[in-house]
Every structure is written in structure tokens, then in C-alpha cells.
């Protein structure tokens, strides 16, 4: 049993690292040769994840705009990419910064991101009437910082990655995740 678990973990880790290597190879091919196919493959791999992460933190229009701007920024700043980090983490860092800039520009930053603000039970997504979107509606009820940390964790980012993406100490990330899980559990139970 123990051996089987170890084997599973090893293969999972290997698959994840292979995916990261694949991303690095694709991005290097795009940087060196301007390969459209490589960029297209990277986009297909990560665009839905980035878009949904941004959608959880904002509205559909803003999420679409920031997703597009983030990819354009990736194209412009390709020569600045350092291979020490994962491509996905770099992409999400760009997305996070652009979203914060957009929220500050439209003066939605304080209202939405105040960590002390309580979950607003009236804040319901426009798609929440659909049964399959209940989780999305629950997620939108979390405070901004908890929502962001929780969303990034569901995208398989490590605590260190989340701390770097959100420019927050690791301990703060842990706290936000703990609160987010507790709040989600309560909301999940209430809904059930």
C-alpha cells in the first residue's frame, strides 16, 4: 500500500514536472523562433485557467480584458522571462498585477479587497441560477484575498508560488487559505 502510494506520488510529480518542462520548451521555442504554434499551444494550455482565476476575482468583461492584456504582455516581455520560475506562475503574476491595476483604476480596489470585510450573502453571480454554477456563486461570496488564495491553490500552485504571485508573505497565505476553506465549508454546508 505504502509502495503503491509512493509510486503514485512519484508518477504524479513526474507528470507535473514534465508539463512544466513542456511549457518551458514551448515558450523557449516561441522566444527563439517566434513559433506561432508554440504560443498557440501555451495559450490553449493556460488560457482557461487564467481566465477563470480572473473571473473569480472580477466580472466577465474585466476578466476577458485582463486575460487578453496579460497574454499581450507575455508577448511583449518574452525576453524578460527568467526560466527559474514556472511559466504558469509568471503568467498568473502578470494577470494578478494587471487585475490590481485595473481595480485601482476603476476604484473598486478598497470595496472588494478589504480583508476585514465579511462575505456578502447578497453578492450572487448572474449565472448562479444554474445548478452547475453554485460553486462559482459560493466562491464569489468569499472576501477578495481569501478567494484569490483559494483559487490559486485549486490551480495547483504551491504556497511559495501563491506568495510570489500575490506578493504576500507565506504565513499570510496560509492564514487566508485556512479562512477560505472554513468559509467555503460553511457555505457548502448551508447550501447542502
Amino acid at each position: 500500500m505504502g509502495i503503491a502510494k509512493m509510486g503514485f506520488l512519484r508518477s504524479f510529480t513526474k507528470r507535473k514536472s514534465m508539463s512544466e518542462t513542456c511549457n518551458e520548451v514551448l515558450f523557449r521555442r516561441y522566444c527563439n523562433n517566434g513559433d506561432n504554434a508554440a504560443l498557440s499551444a501555451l495559450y490553449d494550455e493556460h488560457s482557461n485557467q487564467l481566465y477563470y482565476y480572473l473571473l473569480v476575482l472580477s466580472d466577465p468583461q474585466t476578466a476577458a480584458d485582463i486575460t487578453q492584456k496579460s497574454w499581450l504582455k507575455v508577448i511583449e516581455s518574452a525576453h524578460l522571462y527568467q526560466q527559474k520560475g514556472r511559466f504558469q506562475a509568471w503568467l498568473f503574476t502578470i494577470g494578478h498585477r494587471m487585475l490590481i491595476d485595473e481595480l485601482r483604476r476603476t476604484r473598486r480596489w478598497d470595496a472588494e479587497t478589504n480583508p476585514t470585510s465579511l462575505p456578502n450573502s447578497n453578492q450572487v453571480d448572474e449565472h448562479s441560477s444554474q445548478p452547475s454554477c453554485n460553486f462559482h456563486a459560493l466562491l464569489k461570496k468569499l472576501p477578495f484575498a481569501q478567494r484569490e488564495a483559494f483559487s490559486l491553490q485549486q490551480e495547483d500552485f504551491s504556497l511559495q508560488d501563491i506568495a510570489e504571485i500575490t506578493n504576500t508573505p507565506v504565513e499570510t497565505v496560509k492564514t487566508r487559505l485556512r479562512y477560505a476553506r472554513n468559509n467555503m465549508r460553511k457555505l457548502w454546508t448551508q447550501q447542502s
Partner: protein
Amino acid sequence: MNEPQKEPDFKRAYQSSKQDYPAPGRIKRAVINSQRQQRWLRYLPAKEWLALAAAVGCFLILITMTNQTHLPPQNNETLALEVEFHNYADEPAPVADHRQQLTVYQREYTQNLNTLSAFYSRRAMLAQHAGSWQFIDCNQQIITVSIDLIEDLRKHKRIDPGIFDGSFVELAFDENGRLMSVSPARENLC
């Protein structure tokens, strides 16, 4: 104890919810199109492009200035051009002393070298050769040459005898703008 069992529920619910909200297709089209447009710009960063553009601009200005320096002076606002009278001396006056005579020859020779070096020429058509000669050049400028200068040039065989009204000629000027010779042009090159 139950917490580890609930976490995968969140994850599955999150992934399921994510599939309900895919990124709009227009984003990919915009990104790929933008990449194609900016592809050639990526080979040089912005600062290098700016420096390259400035260098090309300076080069073009230098080329333009150099070309303008070598062009004959053209004043399109001038409708008529009068050529000042000047003449040529055939032989210096004889001097008794041979050494002084040699000096005079040397001075004349040097002066003639300066005078006779054609600086530029202008193509024109002889419009009138009764009295003062009038030429019309390619810019429709009228060049009037006094009869004295014509006679002087004729005396030194610097005007082709076969020139008549309507002939296309080539007027040779020295660097001071003095007319040196009038020779027939083979064809109208205006």
C-alpha cells in the same frame, strides 16, 4: 478527520465550475493576430529601434545636404538671368626682359587654368540671336548674353558657328558663374 476528504470535493467542484466558464475565443484570435503583427518588432527592443531610426534620419539628412552642395545654384524665382560681360586676352603684352616675360606667362597660365575649368553646364535653347543672345533653359529661365560677350567668345572660337534659332545648346559656366562656351547639344535633354 473529515477535512482531507472534503478538499478534493472543492477541487473537483472548482475544475467543474471552470469548465462552465471557458475563455472567450476572441481573446485567442486577438492575441495571435497581435503576435503576428509585432513579430518583426521583437528582434530589436524599443531603445534600439529608436537609435536605429535616429541614425537613419541623420544619414538621410547628410546625404541631402551633400547633394545640395554639389548642385548648381537654382533660383526658380528669377525669371531672367543677365550674364556679365567679360573677355579673354590672347597674348600678354610683350616685355623686354625675358624673366619678366616668363613671369607674365606663368601668371596668365595660372589664371587661365582657374578661369577655364568648367564648373557646371546648363542645357538651353537659343531663342534669339539678333543683338543680345537669349537662351531659354530647362526651367524656362531666360538667359541673356550681351553681343560683346558673344563677339568675344566667337573670337576665341568658344561658340559653335552652326548654332541658330531653336538650336539646343550646352552653356558651360566656370565656378564664378561666367559663361565660357556655347556648344551644340546633340538632343533636347530637358
